[in-house]
């Protein structure tokens, strides 16, 4: 198993600020916008973006929720490993809101497909956008593309992209791991 660093802490920080600015460009005061972190790994990115938006760009009252997609996945009874559920925490309705899905890595697009179904339980959004830190291009199984992307990566199927967060793993770093 070999691994190589795709993004360092400094690069991640620059990218997060760029993504935050791009969000502001489209959503300005976030009055009708809600951020939804996709469980389990999207929530760290969502938390971080919320922090940057509030502290560095003075955007007040950002609504942030966590969405778990386990019960909406299309590989129930097909995957070898049991599917592990996480907490969903959305204490607002998304009816007529502009929703931004936030996830760390976009790979096949199947998680986002599940998230699109799952979010409907909380109302009918006005529009849904997708923000990912890493976009593994050429590996999509579904016609899903991000609206905001941190970095595009070419990775083959045996490789894994792992995003590490200071809060969780003790460092901000993105690795490309060859299994």
């Amino acid at each position, binding site marked *: 198993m070999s691994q190589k660093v795709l993004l360092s802490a400094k690069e991640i920080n620059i990218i997060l600020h760029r993504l935050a600015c791009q969000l502001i460009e489209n959503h300005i005061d976030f009055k009708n916008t809600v951020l939804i972190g996709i469980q389990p790994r999207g929530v760290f990115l969502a938390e971080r973006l919320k922090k940057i938006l509030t502290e560095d760009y003075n955007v007040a009252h950002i609504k942030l929720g966590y969405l*778990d997609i*386990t*019960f*909406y996945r299309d590989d*129930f*009874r*097909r995957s070898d490993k*049991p*599917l*592990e*559920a*996480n*907490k*969903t925490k959305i204490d607002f*309705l998304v009816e007529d809101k502009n929703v931004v899905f936030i996830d760390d890595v976009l790979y096949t697009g199947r998680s986002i497909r599940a998230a699109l*179904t*799952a979010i*409907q*339980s*909380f*109302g009918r959004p006005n529009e849904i956008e997708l923000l990912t830190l890493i976009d593994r291009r050429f590996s999509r199984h579904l016609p899903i593309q991000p609206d905001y992307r941190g970095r595009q990566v070419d990775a083959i199927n045996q490789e894994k992209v792992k995003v590490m967060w200071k809060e969780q793993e003790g460092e901000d770093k993105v690795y490309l791991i060859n299994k």
Partner: protein
Amino acid sequence: MSELSVNHLLGIKYLNESDIQLIFETADHFKEVINRPIKKVPSLRDITIANLFFENSTRTKLSFELAEKRLSADVINFSAAQSSVKKGETLIDTVNNILSMKVDMVVMRHPNPGAGVFLSKNVKASIVNAGDGAHEHPTQALLDSYSIREKLGDVNGKNIVIVGDILHSRVALSNIFALKLQGANVKVCGPKTLIPKFITSLGVEVETNLKKALEWCDVANMLRVQNERMDISYFPSTREYTQQFGVNKALLDSLDKEIVIMHPGPINRGVEITSDVADSKQAIILNQVENGVAIRMAVIYLLASKIKQ
């Protein structure tokens, strides 16, 4: 996350502690789901479940059916009263006929103890026991423990007394297994005639004085007197039973702490508990019913995930 150690839910007896924790953690997620504006997930859309009720039930049947529908399973219902069982068909034949219609899971209530175990050995489907005679009622025990955990934070180390007709109660037996597995202290309380002789071999204590039992406990689970299962007279009169083993407001107020009152239903108001107790803040009877749907969703979901394609 692991998976269940069993392929069927036949009784708490066959589960281990981590199975129970897994069911509770999964039920937490489903409890959040059933409180959403849209209370449904598509997980089990390719699973068909048959609810076979060879004995009357309101709550359990509705609760199972709702849990199945909330998971998007296809559901067929069967009641013995309107079926060919009356024409002399055997249990295996009945079930195999239903299974040949491509059913993946069977939820069964049956008057004979062991009916679920028997079925699991003879047919190809996941079996969920929804009550077999006076043997076990595992989902009821799970939702009871889950409700205690929700109310008191933990089951471990808590004092729980089960009051009433222990002899005819599958709820009592399943509860004892579940509570002991989670490290609770359990006493049973009722007329001596309604307490099985060897119940202490399960690690529970017998207390025949209701006041003493209530003073000791954190939670009292009140059971119904099952007149329909009584072939002989076990106590002189209902009135005398109520005087000795019925819980009323005055009795609860005389205790130096506030205990939690549970009841698996159906309640005979004025017999085992009075109306003011059943409707009081101390009673979590309706929470039990709500949790029942979440627990049954968790059990069905976890068992279905073990049915390989």
